[in-house]
């Protein structure tokens, strides 16, 4: 037998009610939590359009030297816009290995 006074009983009842409500709210929040802001991210969002890129855009990318940037611009001026990324391989200085590194940085619209 727990020797509780009337005041203690009331305090206990208050705490019990608090615990009940708190737990209920926590459960409701969990159950009603929703997956928000599901958006389709454009895969090209962080990439640069190869046909619009200026020299400074190209230089901002890792792995592109000023010389290579000049060559890309010169190729575009000479042959017109790039039709696909594979065309990069035709530039002197871009082999298969470098192409693999660069392909994730560009897109062709």
């Amino acid at each position, binding site marked *: *037998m*727990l*020797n*509780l006074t009337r005041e203690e*009983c*009331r305090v*206990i*009842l208050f705490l*019990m*009610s608090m*615990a*009940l409500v708190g*737990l*209920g709210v*926590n*459960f409701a*929040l*969990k*159950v009603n*939590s*929703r*997956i*928000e*802001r*599901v*958006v*389709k*991210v*454009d*895969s090209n969002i962080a990439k640069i359009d190869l046909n619009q890129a200026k020299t400074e855009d190209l230089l901002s990318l890792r792995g592109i030297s000023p010389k290579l940037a000049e060559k890309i611009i010169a190729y575009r001026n000479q042959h017109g816009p790039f039709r696909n990324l594979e065309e990069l391989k035709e530039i002197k200085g871009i082999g298969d290995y470098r192409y693999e590194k660069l392909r994730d940085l560009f897109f062709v619209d």
Partner: protein
Amino acid sequence: MKRPLVWWTLLFCAGILAASLIKTTFLLAYGLMLAALILSFLSLRNRLKFNIFVSCFVFFLGAALWKNYQILPKCHISRYISYKSSFPYAIGGFIKNDPSVKGNKTTFIFQAEEIKFANLKSNCCGDVLVYVSSKKNLHYAEELILTGNLYRPFSFGRSHRQSYRDYLYNQGIRSIMHAKTVNLVVGLNKHRGSGLKRLALWSKAKMEEIFLKYNSPVAAGILDAMLLGEKRNVPVLINNAMIKSGTVHILVVSGFNVGIVAFAMVLFLKLMRLRKRVRFYLAVPLLVFYCLISGASTPVVRATVMAIVFMFGLFIKREPDIYNSLSIAALFILGFNPAQLFDVGFQLSFVSVISIVCLYPKIKSLLHADSLKIKGARLLIDGCLVSFSAWLGTMGFIAYYFKIFSPITVLANLFIVPLATLITLSGFSLIMIGLILPCLAPFFASTCELLVKLLLNINAFLIKLPVSCIYLP
């Protein structure tokens, strides 16, 4: 019944245990809770009925809390993990603890807030254990975007024993990420989390610097583990030797360390001639701060809550009761995370204290230890009996979980514990002197060094004794 809190704590634990064993739903437990509450209201005038319904409420509260803990929100990160896909996941969020660097690996707990995979980006929640396979200078509360493989923890343990997955689940971690390359972690230089915890971790780093500056790496590592709860610099050989002798508990910040800190703190404040009220107001935040510095592990939280309840009892001039303070500590920890009931650390921490409190006085009166007239002999016997009581209580758990039986533990603790107390006190003195009078710090550091060497040599001698440690099948 003199201690209603003890009774309710037992019922609360029984509720958690029952809910983990019986297949039931949260709503059923919640409905029963509600019924018990209404009946308690109605039977306010009849004490017996009131007590019964309150007890029922506490039992169902434990069960409902456990069921609620197991329900994961719809946006929980573990729900996004696909078994068959191997695409990399990118998660955004912040670091939730102090990252640990060991060898060439950085590990931390990450609170995820955003996830991106297969061109989809959405909000998420939940903790992720992150491994980065390189040394990274990361800090608590730093906001990051991580990219790597995300998976659920595997269970390699035998079905009837606790596995690593169970351990992680008990800590609230349900997913692991391996961020393999350095480039994949991008710091955004924003800070989140609690400012107090950041301050605690900054203080910890400063204290570690003092240890490393004035001590040898081994002594600094041991001081770091004993005082600040950081075990990463303790050599594996020393750790294993301490496990064999059953004294590894001194290498982590446990209730024992918090007790020493609380005692030293109160003594220091008393020496400053501060009034009781002021001492209490200063000691409580300092203890909480120390709890944060040492990583707020279960034994530390347990000991901190117990110390605060104890001091509060003295403060309001009520007789402090160890059973009540132990119950409050248990309710506090289980209220936050009911899965801690199944955690080895929680069980060992509480069982050792309960066995010391229950068994020690009984064994003492059985052996008539008080009748000894020589004070030194009485103290020695007391130390032996405390160590023996803790060993007796935890022996079964250690044999079950770790498959090890160390008969040398009682003897080892008899020598190691007083030394550990001295090391803890001298370590704190070194920190104080290192901050106030750095010119005197090398002398204090020499004392620490000597004590650590003594501790290691005694431990090495003890484990060489025949049948000091038996590995169970």
